[in-house]
């Protein structure tokens, strides 16, 4: 059944995690989303700490939806929201986000696990998590939590990813509803 997820009606949020190679992959993915896509999309991308947070601006130019950086207790609404540098991004409840600056997870802050785990706790079955390319083990615990709560996980096919470690680690740790190439992921987004 998860093979045919209707992104507009079957989920209340989409969470995406990426690391090494993630900027290009996200670029491709977000460019597919139609301007009227109603479901909030939350993103954690590992970036070097000294790089300022221009990533939201960069990706906004190719995305039909508004792309913003998260602010604490921001309402959860239509559009794409990025985790700000040096904060973990969390889903607080069905209608708002929260931030935390507690210790990095596997050397990363923001990290993917806290976003996925917090989103799973709030949305359980009505959540789609997408894990992209990366060279970290971040995301594995998050993927496990999403699946445990009945949500759907799509993982980028490791040999299609710029860095295969992260998707491969998550797959080995927790599995996924679907393992897809970036091209397939893009097609699913475009069909949304």
């Amino acid at each position: 059944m998860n093979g045919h997820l209707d992104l507009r009606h079957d989920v209340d949020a989409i969470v995406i995690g990426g690391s090494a190679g993630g900027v290009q992959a996200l670029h491709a993915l977000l460019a597919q989303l139609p301007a009227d896509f109603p479901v909030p999309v939350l993103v954690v991308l590992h970036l070097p700490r000294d790089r300022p947070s221009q990533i939201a601006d960069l990706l906004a130019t190719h995305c039909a939806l508004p792309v913003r950086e998260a602010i604490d207790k921001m309402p959860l609404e239509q559009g794409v929201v990025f985790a700000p540098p040096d904060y973990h991004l969390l889903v607080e409840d069905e209608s708002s986000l929260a931030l935390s600056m507690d210790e990095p997870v596997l050397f990363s802050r923001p990290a993917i696990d806290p976003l996925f785990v917090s989103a799973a706790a709030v949305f359980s079955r009505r959540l789609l998590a997408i894990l992209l390319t990366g060279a970290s083990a971040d995301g594995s615990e998050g993927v496990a939590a999403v699946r445990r709560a009945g949500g759907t996980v799509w993982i980028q096919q490791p040999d299609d990813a710029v860095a295969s470690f992260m998707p491969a680690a998550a797959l080995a740790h927790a599995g996924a509803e679907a393992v897809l190439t970036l091209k397939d992921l893009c097609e699913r987004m475009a069909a949304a």
Partner: protein
Amino acid sequence: MKDQEVELFDMEVRLLIEAVYLRYHYDFRNYAVSSLRRRMRHAMMRFGCERPSDLQHRLLHEPDVFAQALQYFTVQVSEMFRDPGYFLALRQQVLPVLGTYPSIKLWVAGCSTGEEVWSLAILLAEEGLLERSLIYATDINPESLKLAEAGAFALDRIAGFSRNYVAAGGKRSLSDYYTGAYQGVVFDRGLKKRIVFADHSLATDSVFSEVNLVSCRNVLIYFNRGLQDRAVGLFRDALVPRGFLGLGSKESLQFGMHAHDFELCVPAQRLYRKVVA
């Protein structure tokens, strides 16, 4: 919509929080649940507890376990001159205004291990205002307050602090303000003469003084909206008319009930001023 496992976990966390409140009068009841869940998992791991209810049992019966667990319930991460742009804006846009008052009172709410308050003292000293100032540095974590008061920091953190200090418009060298000690540095006692460290909770205590500036950074993110409103209400009541309020770089008043009591004065640095009613 919640999954049963999560529901049960949340229920246990709520009971634990209630138990902590009744037993130790620390009030976490209105903290943001998303980070509370994280804090609880960390604490459970640290104390080898399978469930929040196991941890609750230990907390109720072993006060020293509670003292240690408190370090997990709150997030203590801090840095000197964190977000240098904030301190630069204080230096260039706020202190010149405060300097027109005969005496200045400042409140660092949620001062953690002291990095922010020592930074502020250096800023005031360099602008020639420290002698006229009184800084209240408050927190709920007694361990942190003790460390804050000692003004001692590990050696490996100093390079980062110095970089921030320069970016914040530092006029000297950060090393002018500390002396090397065993495995770390200790900041100049002279800076501390004008700082009062005190236990104060934004969740349960009330206003204790009138102040010209409140700096409360990365504390409100751990509160839910209701508790944020309470804390910001305290700041409003403590501030003199046109007093300043500084928040963390990703915090905002715009989602709370006191948004109209303040206006942004340096938007990029989350510095607000209280409007006169």
